[in-house]
């Protein structure tokens, strides 16, 4: 398990989420599956990260910025779901390159597949309904594409929580 380093601290996340209209926020980790993009026997050029509930893969350039898994105990850990197949990762990589036709020689390296935890900030916007804003803990950008995975994981956590039982 590789836990990616949280680059957006509390004050920066607070400022970002304020701009999106959030009134409350909390940190979280989302578990995903990563696979390297590159040539065999060479250092990975990028990583694709995805899980069962993500509609498409996230792309991370260069090496994964790992940190100790001991940090930030008590932060919500969200399960993104099962690992997609190698074929799914390969297909995602194909569509990425068709959308921006570059880097054709680089291939998915299935043997590098590993579990990762992506740092997130979850913002809650109250109104007639509570809206969720998912912010990357790496770049600070809002990641709408991760909402289905985060919502599914929040529901799963709630179903398993002692309060629910």
């Amino acid at each position: 398990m590789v836990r990616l380093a949280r680059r957006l601290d509390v004050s920066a996340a607070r400022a970002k989420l304020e701009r999106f209209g959030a009134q409350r926020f909390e940190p979280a980790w989302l578990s995903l599956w990563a696979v390297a993009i590159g040539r065999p026997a060479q250092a990975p050029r990028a990583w694709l990260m995805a899980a069962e509930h993500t509609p498409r893969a996230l792309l991370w350039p260069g090496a994964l910025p790992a940190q100790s898994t001991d940090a930030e105990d008590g932060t919500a850990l969200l399960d993104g779901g099962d690992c997609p197949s190698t074929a799914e990762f390969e297909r995602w990589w194909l569509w990425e390159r068709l959308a921006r036709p570059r880097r054709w020689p680089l291939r998915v390296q299935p043997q590098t597949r590993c579990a990762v935890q992506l740092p997130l900030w979850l913002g809650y916007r109250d109104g007639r309904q509570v809206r969720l804003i998912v912010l990357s803990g790496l770049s600070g950008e809002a990641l709408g594409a991760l909402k289905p995975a985060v919502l599914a994981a929040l529901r799963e956590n709630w179903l398993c929580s002692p309060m629910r039982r």
Partner: protein
Amino acid sequence: MGAFTWWDTVVLIIYVVGIAWVGARFGKDQESTQDYFLGGRKIPGWAIGLSVMATQASAITFIGAPGWGFEGGLERLATFINVPLAMAVLILVLVPVFHRAGIYSIYELLERRFGALTRSLAALLFLIARGLATGVVLYAPALVLSVVTGWNVNLTIVLMAVIAVSYTVLGGISAVIWTDVIQMFVLWLGAILSMVLMVSSLPGGWGDVFEFGAANGMFNTIDFSLDPTVTYSIWAGLIGGVVMHIAYFGTDQSQIQRVLTSPTIAEGQRSLLIGGYLLVPQMLLFLFIGVMLAAYYQQHGLTAPENLNELFPRYVVEAFPVGITGLVIAGVFAAAMSSLDSALNSLSAVTVRDFYARYVNADADERHYLKVSRWATIFWGLYATVFAFFAGNLGPVIEAVNRIGSWFYGALLGVFLLAILSHRSNGRGAVAGIVLGMAAVWAVSNTDVSWLYQNFVGLVVSLVVGYGVSLTAPAPSREQLADVVIEETAPDMQAILKGRSDAAEIVGRDARLTRWRCIGLVVWFFMALALLGGLQLWANG
């Protein structure tokens, strides 16, 4: 001055080769900072903004808009005045759905929502429409080459097609932010320099231009006529034009691809915002050059070329200093190549993803798909070339591309809005909406009604027919609505989110970024309208 000298040729070659070299040299570095998901940003926002504008300020604008302004003055701005409103609708309604769905091709959303037939039909319409418009985009640099060299324009079309298809097949020019910025400056330099040269050649300077424009009604931008046959009335621009631009920027894969490949909603919104703010002033600039050219031709007793698309390139070649002519013509060339590259890429990507990998060969390896995408590029290059031969007969190129789009855009937007806004509509209704929406546009195109209204007619017919026919078939399933129904609004999910929100830390004051962005665009629209109204009042005494 007066001709395209060998110095200009040298500048042109150095510029085009230089842009290609910078793209090849720095494209890789850019990928790791700008393109890739979650990457850190090191490029300033203003450079990204100019890059976005460079993709919008294609050779079509540079060549077509002055000819358009020469012919009809600033009234043609009615076509573009609605762009800020269109961008606000896109940012609020379409982009969040597209982003959440995590799609690569926009037509995938239609398959998930309505089934394979709707996806294929919409993708086919895109291929036909964008292929035809690419023919016009190909014609533009070919015309410039023809003006510069004196060669037959059909020969230069074939030459340009071979060059464009070749480099697209070989991987294309990497869209590097900084080359786009240079491009933008060169095109604007050309525009501003032409204004300075024209004004200095007129005895009364700016006074002559404004006097000529006012006397010939060229500053009458806002026409409140309710007559639907008035092509550029403010209502045609607001009712038909806004539909056209929502559809163009929101449902045309070649345009929305930038948003779909943006890592975040904010980045996708940024490119739309920049277009929303800058497209109107840019169009005003190039139309105003057309007005100035009209004053210039009248004062110097010159006869305008029969093909008004040649007007501005001819002026650049005849009036600009040696070397600068080469630079500006090279800028037009590079802009056209960049537009052609992205158009051919999106045509080829949709062919492979929405048709070949969907129906012909779903399980091939990547090399096979790459090979197919290259053949698709060649096919679309040939298709565009054939159409480019006729593009010269369509009048100003900038109007030609918009007219072509107007045959398809209303029905296409209608089916996307049905998918997103109506949870009762289904595949049967969507197909009926597209087919009858197109039929209605065809019927209206045979009347004297302004072509801008075609977009609105297509939209309304596809929405009404689509919804009505949907009632004759079962409602869509929960899975089919998954992309357009926000899961967080389900009652059980609301309870979970409320519980988490109550326990979470307080952020601070409320500031809705997206809402402010959209309000800004609406304010900008009214400011532009007020400015043009003021100019019109002044011109009419």
